[in-house]
């Protein structure tokens, strides 16, 4: 008995204009459900792991809006069956945190079907001072499976000494010139990835992942698929340092190479569509993000 991925889907803007995180999550989630032939009403729990969204919505959980858009039990059915939605925020490691939470509710039998969505977009043209990520969204459906092990181990480590290397902060900035009717300033989002982040993330991920593999009795040669995010400047060098065959590192392509919270699902989606996922027996997930936080997971079948 394990918790497995049933389907995945990815959404990217179809025009130069910003689509917004909610719409991208909606699109990915609809594709995901469609591919699985699944009625949205079967989703018992919807977890959103995205960080950046249009207008910087802080309340309610974005997951609730997505639930309504998907028509996933916007009101509980007569038999009492409903959907419970909330957001998890753990930066680039949010997907694996969401897996950890959903896996638990699936294993305990509290839910039968879990959906994880992750998307990011800049809040608006006049509200952003730097946004280094590719606007993107992704969704995955998680289920219990009596025949597969699925996610067998997850681990998270934090390195707060490097917290300043990647920050996303909303802050009120005073205007230099204040005209009549001007509130005197404006709230702006600044996302700053400072020099050295990827190198430090790589160091943190290498040491902890080597220990994670050893603790789980897995050698580098046994890893059939490495889903390491962020991809740029991280995935290939991490695989190399760990001694993992370069051919098992998943690459998502130029359009999604700077995806943020959606990146692990996007990589999984590529692996699924190229057949690599189906062929793999041992899949290693490694995510590194702000904090620095590093997360690992093993997926076995």
């Amino acid at each position, binding site marked *: 008995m394990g918790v497995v991925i049933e389907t995945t889907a990815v959404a990217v803007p179809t025009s130069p204009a910003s689509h917004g995180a909610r719409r991208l999550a909606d699109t990915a989630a609809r594709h995901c459900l469609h591919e699985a032939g699944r009625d949205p009403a079967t989703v*018992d729990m*919807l977890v959103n792991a995205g*960080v*950046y969204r249009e*207008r*910087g*919505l*802080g*309340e*309610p*959980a974005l997951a*609730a*809006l997505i*639930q*309504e858009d998907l028509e*996933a*039990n*916007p*009101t*509980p059915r007569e038999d*009492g069956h*409903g*959907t*419970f*939605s*909330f*957001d*998890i*925020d*753990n*930066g680039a*490691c*949010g997907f694996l945190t969401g897996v950890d*939470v959903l896996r*638990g*509710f699936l294993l*305990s*039998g*509290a*839910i039968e079907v879990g959906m994880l969505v992750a998307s990011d977009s800049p*809040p608006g043209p006049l509200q952003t001072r730097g946004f280094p990520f590719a606007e993107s969204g992704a969704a995955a459906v998680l289920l219990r499976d009596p025949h597969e092990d699925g996610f067998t181990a997850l681990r*998270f480590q*934090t390195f*707060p000494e490097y*917290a300043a290397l*990647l*920050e*996303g*902060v*909303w*802050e*009120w900035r005073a205007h230099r010139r204040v005209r009549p009717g001007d*509130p005197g*300033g*404006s*709230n702006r989002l600044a996302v700053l990835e400072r020099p050295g982040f990827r190198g430090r993330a790589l160091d943190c991920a290498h040491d902890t992942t080597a220990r994670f593999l050893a603790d789980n009795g897995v050698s580098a040669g046994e890893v059939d698929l490495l889903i390491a995010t962020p991809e740029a400047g991280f995935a290939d060098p991490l695989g190399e340092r760990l001694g993992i065959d370069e051919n098992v590192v998943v690459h998502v392509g130029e359009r999604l190479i700077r995806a943020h919270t959606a990146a692990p699902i996007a990589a999984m989606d590529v692996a699924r569509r190229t057949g690599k996922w189906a062929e793999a027996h041992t899949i290693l997930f490694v995510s590194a*993000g*702000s*904090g620095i*936080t590093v997360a690992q997971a093993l997926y076995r079948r």
Partner: protein
Amino acid sequence: MTTEPATSVATARFESIGVHLPATRVPTSALMASTRHRTGIELERLTGIHEHRVAAEGEDSYTLAVSAARDCLSRSQYGATELDMVIVTSISKYHGGMRQRLEPPLSLFVKEAIGATNANSFDLSNACAGMLTGVFVLNDFIRRGAIRRGLVVSGESISQLGRNAAKQVRSVLSRQLASLTLGDAGAAVIVDRAEPGDGGIDVAAFTTLAEHSRLCLAYPSRVGPGATMYTQARAIHRVAIDDSPGLVQEALGPSGLHLDDIDWFIPHQTSARAIRSGLKMLEERIGVVPRHTVVNVEEYGNTSSTTHFLALHRYLQEGKFAPGDRVLLLALASGLEIGVVVLTMDRLVNLSWAS
């Protein structure tokens, strides 16, 4: 509703609770006197809120959360290094003043400040249901034996929404009216595995009535530092009145409990009037009301995700609960989230609650 199956696995419990209230008190009359427009709104009469607390210079969501976590640890049998999980559930994430921090998550800094070096940490956002959703998540991890204990903590620095609303509210029909009811506070709870025969969490059940997801929306403000919140308060109240009684009954169902088994009812604290009308509807629909209903909104205002734990802490401090008392915590939050947590009082009543 989504609920933990009633099996024979372990029970989780509230092991310790902590709070932190800023020292500065602002009377509702003073806030209403600060409105830019002459509103004629009798907010104190409408809500029953006499005053609320306001974070001072140097206090923010982070410091409120850290102080509450330390207060919680001070009466816990565990040290910070023994925590396996730290979940921060603040809606406001101000750290370093009025800087709303999205990354790294606030939990990283809270965990570091309290020395919970062995804990997994993450933030969870679910509006005013955040802390109870965190409890729901920890309850699942602990019952399965995946972790031994964890901390849910929130620091809400939200009184600035009232200051922003005061610049724009013109009448009682304003969608920013609810922002004038908000107060600052921090709260924390440690959840661990109950000893056999002890009390603990009897029920934890949640659902999202997402057709009402857009009734309350908050964004970074365009008129001042912090946020602005737009609430259709009457519509939310109507949904709560219509749907809560049935959902509470449904949540209690698998446990075999009924509303007349509940000794203390702690609803989300929005306004004294809303709580009274909710109780009236509960009686009309179910024919039963809980023996005691806890209302503390008069002194603190609506402190968002922390309200239930401020109320629990206050009543524990005053020695109101007895071992074996059943307490029902009802979350009602933007989303629209409805959650029910029922716990049987045990060791909490024997702890030292001196402030």
